[in-house]
């Protein structure tokens, strides 16, 4: 099963490659197309004919496509069988959808009366989301109050649970106003970020890194390791470049 999946992915990639080719062709041939309008007209009429039998054609094309792919994976016979069964399925599917629609173009109503979908919905949504500053203010206030009470309640519940277990929560209230956030150690409010960073930088510079001999040795070793890893990376890159065959002088 796994193997099959892998193959499928490959097929996907191949398909994409083809699309890419088509782009290249299309963009370059566009002008030519314009020039020979007559042939285009022919093609158009052909296409119109095709449109009638469009679905069958699509199925056929699809099968063709698969066969092409099968050619590529001839080795895997099992795969081929599976593919065939799936293509049959797709035909069924296409027939099914044909039965549904009877070749008619489905008419989408403009939906001006219906607010559940489409343009009307977006417009109503837009207008509903802008009730005015006062209302918004009120809403947010309500939300915050609700949110706070919720948090408070949670806290109380937690406390209650703890007391039930025989624990008592001791709170510390005294002392000066907090300037640092207890969890992250960052400054809040009065002390500016820049000052803290400066302090940190100063602290760092005081440490000596080449005091002991083993430190020096380690540093050298690290340097060497770095160089080695860079060398390995470069080697790998050259291999990649070679593999990509980018260098085409002639």
């Amino acid at each position, binding site marked *: 099963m796994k193997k099959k999946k892998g193959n*499928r992915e490959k097929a*996907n990639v191949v398909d*994409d490659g083809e*699309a*890419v080719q*088509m*782009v*290249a062709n*299309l963009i370059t041939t*566009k*002008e030519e197309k314009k020039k020979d309008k007559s042939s285009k007209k022919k093609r*158009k009429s052909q*296409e119109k004919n095709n*449109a009638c039998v*469009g679905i069958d054609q*699509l199925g056929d094309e*699809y099968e063709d496509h698969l066969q092409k792919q099968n050619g590529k994976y001839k080795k895997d016979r099992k795969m081929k069988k599976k593919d065939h069964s*799936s293509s049959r399925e*797709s035909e069924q*599917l296409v027939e099914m*959808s044909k039965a549904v*629609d009877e070749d008619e*173009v*489905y*008419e*989408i*109503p*403009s*939906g*001006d009366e219906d607010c559940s*979908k*489409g*343009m*009307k919905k*977006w*417009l109503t949504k*837009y207008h509903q*989301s*802008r009730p005015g*500053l006062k209302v*918004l203010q009120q809403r*947010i206030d309500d939300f*915050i109050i609700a*949110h706070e009470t919720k948090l408070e309640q949670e806290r109380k519940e937690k406390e209650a649970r703890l007391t039930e277990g025989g624990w008592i929560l001791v709170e510390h209230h005294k002392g000066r106003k*907090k*300037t640092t*956030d207890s969890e*992250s150690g*960052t400054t*809040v*409010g009065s002390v500016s*970020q820049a000052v803290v960073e400066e302090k940190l930088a100063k602290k760092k510079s005081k440490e000596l890194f080449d005091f002991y001999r083993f430190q020096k040795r380690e540093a050298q070793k690290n340097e060497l390791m770095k160089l080695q890893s860079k060398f390995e990376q*470069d080697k790998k*890159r*050259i291999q*990649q470049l070679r593999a*990509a065959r*980018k*260098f085409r*002088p002639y």
Partner: protein
Amino acid sequence: MRLESLYWLSIQLNLNNGIVAVKLDEVPGLFIRIIPTATSLFNLSKLNLKQNNVRALNTGDVPQPTPKYNCSILEDMFLEENSKFVKKTFSEWEELGEALILLKVWARLRSSIYVHDCLNGFLISVIVSYLVAQDKINHDMKAMAIFRAALKFIDTHPLWKHGLYFPPAGDNAFSEEGNEQHNSSTRVNLAFRIASVAYPELQDEVALTLRCLEKCRDGGFEEIFATKIDNAAKYDYCIRLNLKGNSEVYSLGFCLDDECWRVYEQDVHCLLNQGLSDRAKFIRVIWRNTHSEFNVENGLSGLGSEPLFIGISVSSVEKAFRIVDIGPNAEKKDEALMFQKFWGEKAELRRFQDGKISESTVWESEQWTRHLILKRIIEYLLGRHLSLLKKDIVQIVDQLDFSLLHVGKDPVSYSGRLLGTFEELSKRLRSIQDIPLRVSSVQPLDSAFRFTSVFPPEPHPMATKRVDGARVHNFTPFCVQSLEVMIQLEGSGNWPMDDVSIEKTKSVFLLKIAESLHNNWGMTCTATEEDVDVFMDGYSFRLRILHERGLSLVNREIGRDQMKWVSSADRKLFIHGQHASMINGLQFCYPIFGPVVRLAKRWLASHLFSACLAEEAVELLVAYLFLKPLPFNVPCSRITGFLRFLRLLAEHDWAFSPLVVDINGDLSQNDEKEIDDYFMQSRKADEENTQNKSKAMFLATACDKASEAWTSCSPNPLELKRLVAYARSSANLLTKLILQNQTDSHGWECLFRTPLNLYDAVILLHGDRLPYPKRLLFTSELDQGRHVAHGNPSNAFHPYLLPADMKGSLEQLKTKLMVNFDPLRCFIGDVEKEFSDGLKLWYDSLGGDAIGLTWEHSKKREREESELDRKYPVDLLRNVGEMGKGFVRDVYLLKAPRLTK
């Protein structure tokens, strides 16, 4: 052996040296060129450079010297000898041969120097042999060292002035071969073809290559030996002159020292050089007047039908965009007269601010058409002096401008006013007193503030304090684009701790600010729970607050792994802010940066890649072109920049190397190593986890070394593949358009027309229900596939104010204005929410009317297969169409999904 064909050629376009080329049947691609030599036909003493050998050429009765003609005969005489010498030098010396190949590859990739009046293969081998004879190259040198030595020689030795003689002067090593009989004046100058005007160009190319050797990754291998430097990508302005049937070219006759085409080249060069003065760094005029089907029997009449190519490298954008050229002082009569004669009616006497009265030329031009000044000058000069008609001058300058115009005008012309308004806004914001914390800084985020928005907003007549009724007209749009502005507040310890409360508190602050702005200045504000927009002088600004606590956490997030603490909204804002200021700084250094980004963005959007590549990523990609231009110079025109952008997309090795955009030039080696490590990590992770590949496009900057900001989710590898393919074909088309003679605009439009048949299904929208219908480049139509559904336009929304709307009071009208309303975005959002695992959408967020759909095969879908089976594909498409009621015009099915079972 059978001859396939046999035809006439000439050496380096010089008809004096006619040769025969033979193409053999058996070996495709092999040509044999038969070069006649004349070893003993001419008298050497007559071929001195100062001698006249063309009888018709004389002024009065004094015959003029004909150095070129003499040289070409001398060349024929000593050809055998010279090639023998070259052959001898190269025999049994492997490194030298390799170096020669490198040099030839190098030269061939550079079409501006590998031409008739500059380098050619033979000359390169001669130069190398010369260096060997001079002992500049010895046997210890490796191929690369020889390559470098040869370049250094070309750089320092002005070949056109000194010439290149064999054997080198003062060297008697070859005297036994009979060279001693002619003194230096009659020896062949083998570099006689190198023109004095071509040499600076050659020198510049060599200098660039030497810089590549020093600075680029892998010793500059890719830049030097694997990047094609063709004229289209090299020159900022490309011009083609159609001279077919122009009799003036031949007015001097054919009996000249040089051929008439070469003389004409020189004339054009001189003229432009004088006219453009310091605006241009290099001007290159190349006329490949013979083509392969040239037949001697038809005479010279068929020659010159190919267009003449002019390439101009601009010295600096400021100079090229200069409006006034100051000529000589009026008191210097002779010079002033010359000036007048040269410029004709364009010359005018002007008094300047410093009191000087001088002759001058003035090219009045609006700010957004400044890039056309050069075009106007060239057109004027060529018309005046060479009497060329406008239709015969094809200048590649403004052909892509159509994609950036809105109602016939480039909207970037409003940017000055926008910046002024923003200044005023930030002043007002900072002066607000009646909120608990004061505003400490205001920073613009939107790309319109840094001139990189494709459509910066035009001032809206109703988004002001007092609506000016006179300016409200029939085509006043209903929608206003809102521009993001970031605000920072004073620090405070009273902020809540959890994310939800922080965001709500921010909203409260914004509402307060809005209220205050309304009370103090009478500014109109409109708000939702998330956004607050304020109107000012025709613009709408969307305010956002950056909370400093989030910011300080961002700074350390790498070190302590505190990702969970960073509020994501703050983080995004912070990254946006950093990017905005970075790009804004860059934009001031390179005035052409903005237009190139805009073209790039427009191109991506019109090929429905809006969802794949973030706006900011495009800006970084283009920034890379300006920061690391090697092996080119920095691009100085929008088309060249755009072409290089396409090539970068198409040619960069996305799979194996990161793209490092070093905006301030401050990345150290350690930083680069770090980036490389991140890159390897992410690629390794991809190898292990093939399902979910990320960062297919790895874009690293100084503040985002792991490429997390813009390209972490999109484009994915498949999208990138498509993107690269589109870029490649567009780049090829653009190159062709620049270099070959196509004057119709259709070809240029094709660059922005996307083929719709490459999708599995296509949805077309009602163009007149888009918020800005004028931005649509082409109305999309489809004549293939199966028409699945058709929809009628909704009457609830119109992009423009209707006469009925205008009957009400203006104040009432103002409330109807819609800020940032975009039905396309709503539609895409709805569809993606519903069908995200079965469909992929490709769309144009800049105002396209087509959406491409491709089927996606995801795991999730496989499981739900049975349920979805029934829906596919027609019903599904109808459902999608239903979701866009009133907006969707047509739905087409091109390819049924492949089933995976």
